[in-house]
């Protein structure tokens, strides 16, 4: 920039400032950061393996190095929680990525071209949204096997509808804006308009809704794994670790086997929601005074 040129205040910068002022959002971000770091690096730091069974320590409570005690087959809970974090977060992120890509593509086509394409895609949305989700997931899981990969795919293929609707709505309103007409008058074609003008303006709601979708994906995985579908043992996820809580004895006597994974889910989802809400408030132009 030359000397007399003034720096501009882009909408992204404004959003960042607003986000940072939001204490709850920042708290959520920090918490999420800690959880993620724990999930990524934690497993490398524990002396135990996730599937390492020490039969003599079965159902033993927290003691010494084993801050969270042992499970019913003598595996270290803390290690499993950390590994489980990897899986649960990975499922959340990958499933959401799948959902986002599908949602953005379909929503954009529906919103931009309208007509029959819009009609077909929106009916597809209606159909997918009326699925009895859990039953479908259960059937799919049973049919294709309860693995991490399958779980990611199943959740992704069901969760794209909200994003599609949001993107479609944004694009519908954006394409009527005069700045799009101005670009047409300048000679830009449809693809250029989508790339240069529409996508940057749709980014904000995409970011917000993807973030919130991650939370929902994590919860879905937890639910599926809890009932034995989703990801099955021995691979630990917070969801299938919670399965231990299906026994009354466990709930009453071995709190360290189910409370830690439960709390992890709770805090992760909570912090994602704080961050998501913070992002929405920061990016929403309607809140500008």
């Amino acid at each position, binding site marked *: *920039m030359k000397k007399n*040129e003034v720096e*501009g*205040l882009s909408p992204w910068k404004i959003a960042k400032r607003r986000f940072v002022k939001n204490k709850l959002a920042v708290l959520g971000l920090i918490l999420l950061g800690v959880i993620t770091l724990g999930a990524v690096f934690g497993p490398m730091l524990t002396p135990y393996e996730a599937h390492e069974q020490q039969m003599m320590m079965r159902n033993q409570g927290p003691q010494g190095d084993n801050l969270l005690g042992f499970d019913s087959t003598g595996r270290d809970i803390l290690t499993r929680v950390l590994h489980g974090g990897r899986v649960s977060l990975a499922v959340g992120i990958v499933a959401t990525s799948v959902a986002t890509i599908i949602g953005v593509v379909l929503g954009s086509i529906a919103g931009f071209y309208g007509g029959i394409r819009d009609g077909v895609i929106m009916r597809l949305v209606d159909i997918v949204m009326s699925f009895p989700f859990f039953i479908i997931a259960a059937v799919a899981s049973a049919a294709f096997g309860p693995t991490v990969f399958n779980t990611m795919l199943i959740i992704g293929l069901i969760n794209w509808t909200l994003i599609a609707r949001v993107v479609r709505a944004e694009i519908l309103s954006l394409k009527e804006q005069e*700045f799009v007409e101005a670009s047409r*008058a300048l000679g*830009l074609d449809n693809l250029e308009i989508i790339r240069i003008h529409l996508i940057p303006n749709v980014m904000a709601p995409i970011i917000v809704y993807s973030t919130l979708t991650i939370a929902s994906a994590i919860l879905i995985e937890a639910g599926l794994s809890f009932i034995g579908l989703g990801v099955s043992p021995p691979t630990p996820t917070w969801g299938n670790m919670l399965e231990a809580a299906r026994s009354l004895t466990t709930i009453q006597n071995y709190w360290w086997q189910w409370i830690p994974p439960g709390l992890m889910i709770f805090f992760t989802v909570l912090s994602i929601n704080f961050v998501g809400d913070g992002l929405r408030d920061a990016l929403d132009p309607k809140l500008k005074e």
Partner: protein
Amino acid sequence: MENHLVEVEGLKKYFPIKEGVFSRTVGYVKAVDDVSFSIKKGEIFGLVGESGCGKTTVGRTLLSLLEPTEGLVKFEQETLYNTETGEKIKKSDLQKLRKEMQIIFQDPYASLDPRMNVGMIVSEGLRKHKLVKSKKEAVDKSKELLELCGLEGGNVHKYPHEFSGGQRQRIGIARALALEPKFLVADEPIAALDVSIQAQVLRLMSNLKDRLGLTYLFISHDLSVIRYFCDRVAVMYLGSFVEKASTKKLYHNPLHPYTKSLLSAAPKSDPAVKKKRKVIKGDVPSPADPPEGCKFHTRCTYAEEHCKKERPVLREVQPEHYVSCHFVEKINSL
């Protein structure tokens, strides 16, 4: 016609009204209903009318932002559309022509992409048509254009929200001028601005016209602005021209009843002057269901039986003064 930059003949734009699950066409909104005019090089041609009269649609069609349902549109003797012969300009030729004609919009808040900085907005056309070779060149050219429109070049990296309404309108003008067009369609360019800023922008547009030799189609609902700015003017009502003449002739000697009421309805400029007002009754009919015969007959104090049956045509009633009314001579004692 040699020195006519823009020629329009029999222009019609109908928008289908769709209903039902299968989007059946149940009717048409006749936004523009048989309009003909031409604009000379260096002229400011005004299009005045109230909401729903079709003036904005005419502007958009001239720029090929909308395709006409019927009619002939020519720019610099090149045919853009001729529905009779089925001629339509080639895409590549249209791209070239885009550099010659541009548009300024009404809404200073919706006409600039909020996520692009002003330099990028102004230079978009230049970059698209590869008239600048580097990013630096684009920025420099943007600065030049901003200054041409009365803004500080140093603001080139700022974003639209950092400017006022009047300034944003200037940015819009700078963007339109980037490709060095010969013809500008100004669609209610000052309607959304504060009164003291309106005058600023009008002066800018006038200056630019003189400096750059521009030709304008000026669309507005504000009669006093049209009178000040335009050389010739056409009054539109429900998609058709009711009167067309030089501004001087129209304001000193309005012949069509609608034009008279329009002029009469304008608020006065001096509280001491007693104005004899001719307030027309009724509301504007819907363009989806216009009245039979003369479209104005439902609100016209001079309407007779004939007016309900036959639609009048625009004809030269006095030298260079066109009116579309069956009884124009009688009403004006000509």
